[in-house]
């Protein structure tokens, strides 16, 4: 009983410290202290998103971030960089970024200064550029085997046939065994069935209006659809990146199309005005 009290007090103090240092209170920065302290479970610190993950967002698993159009790659990369930076807070080690050759043709390349702005240290990245998809798949498999890596990002274009259920399931198992954050960054692809724990669809959205600057660009906003979630429900949100606090925050949109269907369920996410239904719940 006493221990429990002390524990709670400790948590409260940590919370207070975190509030002073605003950065730590923000997105995905705080590993849950109950039970695991290894960073395997992270919080988004956005009530609406944390609500759909029963037991927290599993960092050490296979995730997929995809965008439909080639020009959305910026939005998808930015979201993944923020997500990765959040998940890597507790984990030491390098991150391997494997780039399918098809992505390099028209997609440009990663800009380290831009990644650093999302809190991701570019010096941690190892960029692997194989000559063909087969080699890229082999490289991702080898990287997932390495226990000292903190994360593996596999960037593919479209839906290659040999990157199927079996390949993704293997990655998922390795991620769970070795404690790695493994993500597929799919550029311009369709949604397809695979073993990923979550699948996010990211689209750029007009930025928040900045009242101080006329016609200026405010906080950047992303349209986020959680298309697949093995640990709970799916959802649809608009999030904004706050450079001051260095984290994503919920950006309530001013329109509500329809009441969310899923929020009527008893075990659903807490009702939020801005949660809206979408047609493609998987």
């Amino acid at each position: 009983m006493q221990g429990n009290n002390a524990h709670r007090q400790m948590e409260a103090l940590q919370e207070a410290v975190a509030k002073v240092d605003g950065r730590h209170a923000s997105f995905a920065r705080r590993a849950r202290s109950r039970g695991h302290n290894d960073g395997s479970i992270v919080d988004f610190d956005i009530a609406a998103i944390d609500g759909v993950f029963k037991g927290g967002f599993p960092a050490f698993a296979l995730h997929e971030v995809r965008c439909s159009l080639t020009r959305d790659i910026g939005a998808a990369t930015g979201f993944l960089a923020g997500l990765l930076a959040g998940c890597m807070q507790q984990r030491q080690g390098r991150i391997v970024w494997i780039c399918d050759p098809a992505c390099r043709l028209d997609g440009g390349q990663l800009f380290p200064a831009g990644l650093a702005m999302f809190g991701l240290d570019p010096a941690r990245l190892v960029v692997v550029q194989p000559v063909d998809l087969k080699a890229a798949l082999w490289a991702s498999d080898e990287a997932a085997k390495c226990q000292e890596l903190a994360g593996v990002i596999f960037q593919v274009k479209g839906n290659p046939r040999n990157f199927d259920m079996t390949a993704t399931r293997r990655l998922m198992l390795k991620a769970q065994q070795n404690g790695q954050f493994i993500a597929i960054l799919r550029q311009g692809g369709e949604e397809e069935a695979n073993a990923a724990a979550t699948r996010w669809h990211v689209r750029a959205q007009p930025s928040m209006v900045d009242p101080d600057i006329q016609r200026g660009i405010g906080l950047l906003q992303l349209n986020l659809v959680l298309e697949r979630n093995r640990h709970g429900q799916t959802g649809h949100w608009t999030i904004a990146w706050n450079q001051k606090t260095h984290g994503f925050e919920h950006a309530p949109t001013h329109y509500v199309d329809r009441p969310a269907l899923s929020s009527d369920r008893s075990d659903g996410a807490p009702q939020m005005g801005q949660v809206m239904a979408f047609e493609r719940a998987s």
Partner: protein
Amino acid sequence: MRLVAVDACGREAGLRMDQTLSDARALFPDLDVFDHDPAADAVLLSAIAAWCDRYTPLVALDRSCQSDGSAAAVHCAGLLLDITGCSHLFGGEEAMLLDVVGRLRAAGLMASAAIADTPGAAWAFARYSDRQIITSGDHQRQLLDLPLISLRLDLPMLDMLKKLGLRTIGCIADLPRAPLAARFGNGLLQRLDQALGRQEEAISPRLPVPELSSERVFAEPIILQDDIERTVGQLAGHLRQRFDERQLGARALELKLFRVDGHVACVRVRAASPVYSIDRIVMLFRERIAGFHDDLEAGFGFDLVRLNVLESEARQSEQGEMTGGSMRGEGFSNLVDKLGARLGTDRVQRFVAAGTHIPERSFGLLPEASCGQKDAGAQAVLWRQDNHGHEGDGPAVLTRPVILFERPEQVEAIAEVPDGPPVRFRWRRTLYRIERSEGPERIACEWWRDGRGGYSRDYFRVEDDQGYRFWMFRLGLFERETGNPKWFMHGIFA
């Protein structure tokens, strides 16, 4: 058309070099004639040089004659092997010479060879004498009988000497040096001294000498990949002792496979950290060979396998083993080695910062395997400082995109003059309407690199009506630098 080379049968039939083709055909109507191809000759010669690596690491292409394609140049083609300290491995000088000549003759090459104390003397005896092995110290006396052409002299000088009645080396060896030099220049004396050993002559080997090397000769050639791997393991085992004595590890290794028919295959690997354990060296070569997609032609098998250490480095302290667990960082460098061996080391890279503000030059990608562990720390600090600058009183918005185009792409843009943001632009055949924009952020040219007239860039962050955010710049200041500035797309924001 003239003959540049004649084989033994041709010589018997009375043909000689520099003869016109019509004369030769008149002498011998059934003559087989082939076009002279100096490039192919050079390729063949360097292939033979690669094969000669089996005898000594110091193999030099003979460059004493100009390769101008003349008859003399063809005749001069040859190789110089420095066999100091190597001959006992082949059972003495005589056995070694017989082995070299025998194998080359078996391959269909009419080779002649000689062993002497100096490169110049060996060159002379190989071409103008029947004596093949000149005992040490004896070459000065033996050389005296040889013709002057064996001193590697050019044709005008030979003509001049011939007119004076000087025909053998013995004629000029004892002449007073000053008048010789005054009449013929220093070239003649230099060649004479080099042949006689009065002046040092260095040969320039085609390859650097490996730091360590281990080899194995097979009586029965090996073909299977398993056998090659096992051999690599054995050779690495030999090297292991040397590594331990010197506390070294290899950063770059080379496996040379000498095929029975004379072809030499060379497989190189690089390691991210000094390797010395047998398993890791074998693993590196296994991945490298697997990455070839069966390009390693075994043919009739390899009869000599050699493992060279091209680059070595002092080992890092092995403190990790004290705690019992595996060494920290070993798994990662293993992975880098494995990826680098299969995909090529230049495809496994890391970001390094560069000291410039021009975005596409502000960072570079260097092979991970060539960066030491120490660099990693320095780089990390550099990026983080950059990051802190923006976290503090820096802008509250993202000022740099996450995706950058290596080469900025030109767009058709409509913009306000002189320095307004674009209003509309067409990029990759799509029209974008700008709703909001911020800028400009001016990045001036680096005059010490681009030249003084280089245009400065005005960067704008723009957002279109769909919410896509781009990083664009105008090249050149309107009217001050150019009348018609161009617009470029350089990056995509999140």
